[in-house]
């Protein structure tokens, strides 16, 4: 039986009543001041909507106003509890630093897309094998690149607007282009629990100042900051 790893928590943070992947029981392996929530499996579960949701549900269950876990990326396995303890001890200082930094905070996501209007075709996906001429092909390519540049600029404007209005509520942030059709940018913010209502109010305000669509998600364990 190998152990699937979910998240790092302070030692003593015993698993709550939450089922792991495939309904497996979640238990804690501790080493010093830190611990890892794990579940035992005879073989590695595959990546699917259900297993990813189960992985996230366990990390989310470890989170409350006093403890925010360090979520681990899906797909990490160790042979037994002794191996988990060795890994925890090897980097215990790093885990304690992250736990202290995350305490009292959660991650919130903002997915900025082109809205309800038909999305412009993504340059990488819009592969058209038949072109009437090289000139048309180059013109189309230039148009799609210009559209992508415009979306990128608008995404940066939105990100800057959010940052300016919510600076006091955002402890840390991440930004990356959203590489889906009509996608603009994906933002992640580390927000204190006490600031969540004000943060959502800012998102509401900003959503009225752009034609782009803002989808806010969260609270998440702080995957983007781990």
């Amino acid at each position, binding site marked *: 039986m190998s152990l699937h790893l979910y998240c790092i928590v302070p030692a003593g943070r015993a698993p709550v009543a939450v089922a792991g992947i495939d309904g497996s029981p979640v238990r804690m392996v501790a080493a010093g001041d830190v611990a890892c929530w794990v579940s035992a499996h005879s073989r590695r579960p595959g990546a699917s*909507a259900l297993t990813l949701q189960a992985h*996230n549900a366990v990390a989310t269950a470890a989170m409350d106003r006093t403890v925010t876990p360090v979520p681990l*990326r899906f797909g990490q396995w*160790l042979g037994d509890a002794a191996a988990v303890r060795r890994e925890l001890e090897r980097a215990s200082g790093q885990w304690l630093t*992250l736990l202290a930094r995350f305490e009292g905070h959660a991650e919130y996501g903002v997915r900025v897309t082109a809205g309800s209007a038909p999305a412009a075709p993504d340059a990488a996906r819009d592969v058209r094998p038949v072109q009437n001429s090289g000139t048309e092909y180059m013109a189309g390519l230039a148009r799609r690149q210009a559209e992508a540049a415009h979306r990128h600029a608008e995404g940066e404007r939105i990100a800057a607007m959010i940052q300016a209005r919510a600076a006091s509520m955002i402890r840390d942030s991440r930004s990356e282009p959203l590489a889906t059709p009509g996608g603009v940018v*994906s933002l992640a913010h580390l927000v204190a629990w006490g600031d969540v209502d004000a943060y959502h109010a800012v998102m509401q305000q900003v959503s009225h100042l752009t034609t782009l669509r803002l989808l806010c*998600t969260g609270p998440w364990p702080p995957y*983007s900051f781990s």
Partner: protein
Amino acid sequence: MSELPLSPDDELSLAELVNRVLDKGALISGDIVISVAGVDLVYLGVRLLVSSVESLRDRIEPRRG
């Protein structure tokens, strides 16, 4: 394995979930191995898994009708 029907917003939430759980989060040790459709893949980045995720969505879509 059962599959859940997804509303459009659920699809976006699934995208957010996939982006976080497969591409972010702390690394505790060594290589990440993810099994997709029964094949173990050493993890190199979420973009290499996009086709698998889209296959997952394709499997869910026909149930809507």
